């Protein structure tokens, strides 16, 4: 008898979520198998990569190799976003509202909303807006952004269990998609999706952010939670988890010492630029293998490497 490769039977599928508007809108999800197991099911929409743009000049907060490609546009989020699209072919932009950090610049919701609108008006690819993760501040900032950018189908978050009502309601009112953020726990991820559903947010307007750990700094926890999430979604018909996953990894990767130490400080670690790019690309690939549908990445070279990997695996 000829050998037959055993096949996983899938009883569920990931739902599709479309982000952005018009010709450059992107559809995520739709998988009927584990990530890239195209011999067992379909992956109708390949994972996508959004490039990270800060609403202020990151300065020293970014390692030099990460900032180098954007030196000329840092501090001007519109120009920065446009450069990502024109020069690096970004399929989506993730605007991080770092300036709203209550422990930092503490910019007002109005100012943040104005910046978001400027960027949204200047680009035609989908726009993701991340707050700082401050429960109270995000609950003020993200609704203001949602209103200013009504009907653009932005992706706004992170919505957490303590502020999902305000952020979810704003997304509902102004037709945006919500990022449901939970702290590395598949049960809590499920619970937040249920709560958003009870609020009236449709599955077609939710992306799941499971909390992203960078290579060497918690990536394995994220990986396990994502795996568990995908197993429940695809083999246990857990419809509350059948949603595309977004991972914001740029920040997690580039903040660690292995990316920040310069060539002079750590010659034994190899070239800093190459090092950081590889750390980011490898983290990205791991997250893709665990089930990520949308990655938020920082360095253009890491983006390029990751894209080629996606093409190779998804065909």
């Amino acid at each position, binding site marked *: 008898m000829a050998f037959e490769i055993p096949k996983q039977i899938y009883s569920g599928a990931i739902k599709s979520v479309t982000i952005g508007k018009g010709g450059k809108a992107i559809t995520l999800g739709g998988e009927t198998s584990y990530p890239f197991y195209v011999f067992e099911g379909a992956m109708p929409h390949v994972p996508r990569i959004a490039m990270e743009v800060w609403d202020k000049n990151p300065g020293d907060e970014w390692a030099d190799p990460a900032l180098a490609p954007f030196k000329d546009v840092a501090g001007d989020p519109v120009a920065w976003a446009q450069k990502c699209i024109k020069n690096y072919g970004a399929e989506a932009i993730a605007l991080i509202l770092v300036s709203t950090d209550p422990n930092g610049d503490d910019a007002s919701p109005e100012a943040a909303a104005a910046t978001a609108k400027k960027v949204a008006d200047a680009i035609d690819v989908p726009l993701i807006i991340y707050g700082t993760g401050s429960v109270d501040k995000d609950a003020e900032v993200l609704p203001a952004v949602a209103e200013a950018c009504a009907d653009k189908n932005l992706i706004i978050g992170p919505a957490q269990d303590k502020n999902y009502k305000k952020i979810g309601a704003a997304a509902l009112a102004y037709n945006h998609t919500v990022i449901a953020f939970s702290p590395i726990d598949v049960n809590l991820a*499920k*619970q937040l999706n*249920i709560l958003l559903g009870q609020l009236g947010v449709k599955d077609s307007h939710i992306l799941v952010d499971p909390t992203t750990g960078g290579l060497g700094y918690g990536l394995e926890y994220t990986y396990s939670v994502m795996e568990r999430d995908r197993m429940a979604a695809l083999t246990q018909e857990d419809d509350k988890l059948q949603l595309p996953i977004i991972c914001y990894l740029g920040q997690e990767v580039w903040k660690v010492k292995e990316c920040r130490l310069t060539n002079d400080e750590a010659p034994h670690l190899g070239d800093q630029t190459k090092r950081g790019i590889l750390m980011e690309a490898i983290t990205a690939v791991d997250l893709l293998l665990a089930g990520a549908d949308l990655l938020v990445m920082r360095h253009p070279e890491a983006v390029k490497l990751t894209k080629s990997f996606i093409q190779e695996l998804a065909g």
Partner: protein
Amino acid sequence: MSHHFIRIGENLNVVTKIYGQAMKERNPKPLQELAVQEAEKGVDYIDVNIGPARKGGEELMEWIVKAIQEVVPNVPLVLDTSNIAAMEAGLKVHKGRAIINSIMARPERMDGMMPLVKKYDAYMIGLLWGPEGMPRDEHERGMLTAEILAKAAEYGINNEDIWFDPIVAPLNIQQSQLVANLEYMKMLQDMAPGALSTCGLSNASNGVPEDLRPIINRAYVIMMQRHGMASAIVDAFDDELAAVVAGKKPETVKIVHDIMDGKSVDIAAMPKDLQNYAKTARVILGQVLFSDSWLEV
């Protein structure tokens, strides 16, 4: 369900503010009232948890055993402390056959406490907590069981005097541990013929919103009972749980068994109370991922 399922009331506990205070002040009244109420609810034993009781534990245990047995002389006590001297002080004055709660599967704990079992003709709870802490699965539970049995043999303690406690973990963070206990229970009588068993049932629902806890405890005890669990330390005032383990709710029990057997059940067609059991059983078995809204989805 030929055997009577033994309920041990958990409520008399030092961590409860009012009873902790009463213990501290040596005020017998609240403790005696609670003991009487638990007895009225038909518990077979009353657990008396004085905590680690590092200071004055001996005097406290002696005092509390006397105070409680004064009002409920026919309900034996489960003496619950990690303080060995306090345990002995309680056993000394206890009338009837008490249960020592508990002896861990660690050499120093076994050598320290097992002599008390013989000396005072007590039962012991063999807690499957080893030198490396909580066992990870049913096999590690089996190994710890063997350790306890070997030591017990040295001290002349029979299987029939040991209540094995496989340790119940919270469903919302360690679901697989609940299943490991079920697997362990299937093996127990082969490893330790005649041995008894018990568990701190309420820990299964620890961390879940208060009003949703009982359904987890009840569904899980049905599962454990099916695999031979002889008793559980439970909320004495959960009347439905008492009815369930006494075989007074055959319909409810059947639903949980059907889920365990993988039978296809039409949950949507059931009345709400049975739906809750069915959904909870599915979550415990890992067929559905837990979330705080598990009964609503």
